[in-house]
């Protein structure tokens, strides 16, 4: 019986090549688009590792006071000490983002680095592949050590052990640990870094008076507005005696990534990807009902009951949907690589990220959803068609 279902499903698919193609393409394309959108959303806004605290994190970079000679001011370290002690602040990390250039075999490579303190290992959750991360003392002590990502390690040291070796940058940095690559879209400081260096190491560079930024993790997401108010208050007390307007450069993840714009773009995208399968379903169902009346009549005349027929048509739509679903997974797999190199991995052109943009759970849900809709779109017409009266079916469907 099943073999027969598969046989006729394929014949029907071949006969309605155009609609079959659109149908399968529609399903697989929809799965791909949704999987990739879901992954991008998770990478940009989600709390997946390493960004386990993202939703309650504020990135603070300074402020501008209206009419000031210097547009942008970053406060002194003592200001940050005050921020850190605010009641609803759980942790605060400090960082300075930068780039380091090195030469390997005469080829120039630049990597995104961040000078930061030990809090970064608490705020973000990284998988340690080799060695260790640095401690509070080491961060304060300005040691020339570095924790690198696995693709940086591959680039400089290949398959060798990296811990104990040196990055030939200025200054020369001893590798103490290797962490797993992680995906990011845009992102600042630790969110996008390929190498992590103790904060005070920065003082030994050209800039003697560094401006650093803060990663403020609130105890709860709902504390964020209050923390912003506290920041404004501290700034007004310390830096704004003339009571002019102050613009705070402190944003949560949604502000930093323009969530509204993002949603609008995705909505348009989803709309267009849904139009294809929707159109095609209509076409297929009309085609099926018109072309398969006589088949229904014939099968009924020779002993098929309505329920057996409904089963046949449902089996057919499951087969088509499953083919689309499998193709969708393959398509997602193939396209996520492109997405990674063109959107996600913005680090640089030499060291590409090895991570994969595939969230298997997302794909599984997408396949389940497509199966569900395939069943739904198959079951409704199947149920209606199977109830067609045999005599009527035979009369209208002259072969």
């Amino acid at each position: 019986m099943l073999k027969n279902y598969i046989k006729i499903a394929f014949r029907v698919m071949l006969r309605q090549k155009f609609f079959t193609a659109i149908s399968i393409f529609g399903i697989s394309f929809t799965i791909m688009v949704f999987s990739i959108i879901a992954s991008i959303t998770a990478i940009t806004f989600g709390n997946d590792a390493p960004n386990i605290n993202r939703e309650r994190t504020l990135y603070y970079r300074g402020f501008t006071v209206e009419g000031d000679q210097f547009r942008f001011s970053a406060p002194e370290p003592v200001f940050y000490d005050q921020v850190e002690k605010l009641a609803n602040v759980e942790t605060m990390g400090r960082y300075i983002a930068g780039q380091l250039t090195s030469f390997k075999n005469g080829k120039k490579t630049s990597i995104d680095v961040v000078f930061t303190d030990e809090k970064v290992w608490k705020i973000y959750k990284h998988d340690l592949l080799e060695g260790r991360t640095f401690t509070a003392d080491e961060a304060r002590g300005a040691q020339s050590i570095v924790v690198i990502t696995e693709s940086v390690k591959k680039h400089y040291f290949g398959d060798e052990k990296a811990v104990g070796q040196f990055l030939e940058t200025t200054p020369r940095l001893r590798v103490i640990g290797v962490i797993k690559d992680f995906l990011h879209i845009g992102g600042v400081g630790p969110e996008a870094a390929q190498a992590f260096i103790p904060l005070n190491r920065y003082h030994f560079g050209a800039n003697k008076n560094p401006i650093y930024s803060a990663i403020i993790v609130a105890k709860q997401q709902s504390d964020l507005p209050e923390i912003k108010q506290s920041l404004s208050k501290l700034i007004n007390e310390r830096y704004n005696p003339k009571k002019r307007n102050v613009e705070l450069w402190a944003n949560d993840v949604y502000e930093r990534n323009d969530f509204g714009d993002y949603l609008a773009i995705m909505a348009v995208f989803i709309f267009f990807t849904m139009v294809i399968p929707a159109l095609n379903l209509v076409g297929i169902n009309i085609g099926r009902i018109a072309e398969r009346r006589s088949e229904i009549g014939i099968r009924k005349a020779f002993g098929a009951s309505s329920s057996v027929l409904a089963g046949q048509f449902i089996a057919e739509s499951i087969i088509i949907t499953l083919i689309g679903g499998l193709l969708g997974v393959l398509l997602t797999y193939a396209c996520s690589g492109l997405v990674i190199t063109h959107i996600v991995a913005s680090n640089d052109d030499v060291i590409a990220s090895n991570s994969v943009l595939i969230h298997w759970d997302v794909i599984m849900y997408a396949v389940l959803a497509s199966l569900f809709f395939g069943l739904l779109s198959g079951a409704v017409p199947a149920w209606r068609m199977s109830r067609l009266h045999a005599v009527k079916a035979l009369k209208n469907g002259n072969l």
Partner: protein
Amino acid sequence: MIKLTDVEKVYRTSTIETMALSKVNIVINKGEFVSIMGPSGCGKSTLLNIMGLLDEPSSGKIEIDNTLISGYADKRLAHMRNQKLGFIFQSYHLINDLSVVDNVEIPLLYRKGVSGSERRKKALEALEKVGLNSRTKHYPNQLSGGQRQRVAIARAIVGNPEIILADEPTGNLDSVMGEEIMNIMLQLNKTEGTTIVMVTHDENMANKTERVIRFFDGRQVN
């Protein structure tokens, strides 16, 4: 074999009521080859559909094999058709997406406990009986009308039904091909003892059968 008692069929549409059959009483005996004749629209197909359990009468009784068919659910009717009946239609009604042999296998698909290989074997045997064993892998649209009707006969006999109902089986064929089809059916009736009820417009064909039932305007006239 088939007994109709006071069978009536009324088609109701929003505007008119058509009395397709009125007070029909017919007995078809086991092993008989009966033809049904009458002008177009007199209710011949309606009668055959009711005998074939494809349609329900508005009133009256149908017995098949001494069993009163009344209040049967869809599943049970389907089972009955599958076990006892075989149909042949004027316009062949083959499934174009299936090969000749797959078409012939259809009735066996809906029979429990018939394996794939058994199905294939029986379908090929049926095709041999109608002289089409060289065309089993073809598709219906690669065959002539006469060949298609032979496939349809093979499909009708593959499950060894006791009754074959044929609605103008030669209606779309030229006289030579029609003759061939008629001979196959006569042979079937003679050697296998299959009961056959055939609707026809052709006096020559009707004369070859044992009994002719004539219809006019929904009534039996002889």
